């Protein structure tokens, strides 16, 4: 019985908990963290239940309030949805565990508010993923965005201004999406995604539909930080609190990329997005620019989190590149990359947060003097493994998504895309090995062979266990999910790619 209600439970439980946390937080602060964990755990278990149902039985149609679509709001969960639900709720749960020590240090007076809004943010993202109604998606998009504006503004000193700029740009993006939905409503009278998919093909020649598609793309591009609409991302993610950066970097942009896939391939059939208008060509070339831009600018950064934000922009480029290749392999690579990138980015930002927690600053040029390899060996090992995954070294998961993307590029006969993919691998190698060098190899004067190395004993001062365990769970995922990617593709992703490819 419960299993049937999972699609609703996954939203309702965190929503109510978020409100309760705020209320409970007036009197007792300690329960707030545990309530949040409980809500996110329930979401995670529901998402696994949903994935299980979808894999074994097929697409789930859940009607809210019992109203039939297209009059009522419907939650439709197919393989793509279910996959992303699991990813988002998993990372939400992990980062919530991770956040405990960090939040206590960064904002001790605002703990109930943080957990309340954080739960709301996770719920908004999960709702965006699970809904089958275009307007409902707008509402949940705005819920998630507002929560993220508030959370980012709780950060360090430059955060409120960064969050304000993000707010302005993000609202433009969401309003463009709303305009797109409006245009579609005018011409079809429906808001349900499956219904729109049936009604639109007769109207593909109309200008309103064309304009709607354009508005969708721009609005989603702004929200996803797709070059050149990415301007808000580096500031916002750098100055946000560590846990917030870790979570939003791993999930927000990926969920919006999923929305792009829904718009391009479910609402508008693939025929429209690929052949009727050259959207995929435009997206593809812009994605190449995004990848190059992100990697090159990351090389120039001193602040670790800022560097990671630019890498994130490049990663979004990968996903859109995969979508734009418009063949089965490319889309497989894009969907696989959503999972891998969520893990990698969340892990990298978590490591940056752990460093900030222990040391208090994130300047890369300072790492040499900090002797991080002796003080925080486990955290640095996690960083190295995740960096290797971003570069695309087997057997980490990053290699496998790159493999599918390269094959997709070859299938599409787009050699420039393939070369761009491997070039960005090399650029990200430069970015990360610069940092790895500074962590592990201190330039020193040639040691005279007989003097013997004298080392002041540096005491190991690792990040707290509540931070290390989520980081290492994510690292474990990065190492294992790569090798299991064949299984993942054959059970889930193979069906998530639209059937006409």
């Amino acid at each position, binding site marked *: 019985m419960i299993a049937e209600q999972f699609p609703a439970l996954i939203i309702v439980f965190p929503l109510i908990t978020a409100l309760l946390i705020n209320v409970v937080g007036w009197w007792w602060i300690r329960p707030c963290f545990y309530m949040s964990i409980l809500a996110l755990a329930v979401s995670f278990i529901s998402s696994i239940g949903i994935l299980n149902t979808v894999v074994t039985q097929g697409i789930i149609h859940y009607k809210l309030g019992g109203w039939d679509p297209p009059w009522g709001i419907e939650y439709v969960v197919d393989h793509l949805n279910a996959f992303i639900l699991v990813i988002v709720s998993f990372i939400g749960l992990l980062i919530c565990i991770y956040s405990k020590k960090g939040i206590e240090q960064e904002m001790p007076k605002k703990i109930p508010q943080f957990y309340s809004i954080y739960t709301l943010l996770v719920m908004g993202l999960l709702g965006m993923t699970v809904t089958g109604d275009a307007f409902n998606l707008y509402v949940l998009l705005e819920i998630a965005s507002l929560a993220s*504006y508030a959370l980012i503004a709780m950060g*360090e*000193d430059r955060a409120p201004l960064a969050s304000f700029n993000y707010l302005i740009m993000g*609202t433009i993006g969401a309003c463009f999406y*709303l305009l797109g939905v*409006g245009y579609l409503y005018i011409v079809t009278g429906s808001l349900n995604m499956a219904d729109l998919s049936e009604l639109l093909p007769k109207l593909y020649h109309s200008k309103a539909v064309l304009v709607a598609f354009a508005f969708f793309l721009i609005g989603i591009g702004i929200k996803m930080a797709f070059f050149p609409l990415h301007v808000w991302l580096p500031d916002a993610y750098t100055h946000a609190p560590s846990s917030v950066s870790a979570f939003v970097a791993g999930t927000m942009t990926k969920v919006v990329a999923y929305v792009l896939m829904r718009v391009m391939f479910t609402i508008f059939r693939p025929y429209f997005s690929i052949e009727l208008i050259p959207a995929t060509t435009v997206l593809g070339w812009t994605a190449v620019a995004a990848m190059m831009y992100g990697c090159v600018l990351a090389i120039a950064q*001193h602040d670790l989190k800022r560097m990671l934000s630019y890498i994130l922009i490049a990663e979004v480029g990968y996903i859109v590149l995969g979508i734009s290749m418009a063949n089965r392999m490319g889309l497989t690579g894009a969907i696989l990359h959503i999972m891998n990138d969520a893990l990698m980015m969340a892990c990298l930002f978590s490591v940056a947060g752990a460093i900030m927690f222990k040391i208090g600053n994130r300047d890369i040029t300072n790492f040499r003097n900090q002797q991080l390899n002796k003080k925080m060996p486990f955290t640095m090992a996690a960083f190295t493994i995740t960096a290797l995954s971003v570069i695309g070294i087997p057997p980490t998961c990053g290699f496998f998504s790159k493999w599918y993307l390269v094959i997709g590029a070859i299938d599409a006969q787009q050699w420039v895309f393939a070369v761009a993919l491997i070039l960005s691998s090399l650029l990200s190698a430069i970015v990360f090995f610069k940092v790895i060098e500074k962590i592990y190899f201190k330039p020193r004067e040639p040691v005279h062979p007989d003097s013997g190395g004298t080392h002041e004993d540096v005491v190991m001062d690792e990040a707290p266990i509540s931070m290390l365990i989520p980081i290492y769970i994510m690292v474990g995922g990065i190492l294992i999910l790569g090798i299991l990617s064949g299984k993942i593709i054959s059970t889930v992703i193979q069906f998530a790619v639209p059937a006409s490819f």
Partner: protein
Amino acid sequence: MIEYIIAKYNYWAYIVLMMIGFYAMIGKGNLIKKLLGMNVFQWAIILFYVSTSVKKGGATIPIIQNGHGPVTHAVDVAQYLNPLPHVLMLTAIVVGVSTTGVALSLAIMIYRKYKTLEEDEILQSEEYEALKPEE
């Protein structure tokens, strides 16, 4: 050409309004003016949606005329405006209000810190320079 503009005058009005809001968001330096621009932008979109509910032939607002008690007969749809966009825009108005609320609290935080709301002055100010994340 002129008939084209006159016939769709409502849409043109919303476009103008939207562009005014957009310009304010991008072109103005004062944070509150940006916020006002954002509001104008959002209201333009809301008005656009609402205006799509109009029907030709003298449709009236979607409240049943001379009705009392539960409705027992069918309603002539052509007499009433489409209520769905109105309802959707209620949601959108709520979203807009919450966004404005969040933005205003951010503006208060920024004002407390930098004592000004002009973006140029904030970026030049000593407090901003002093708050470099490194060091």
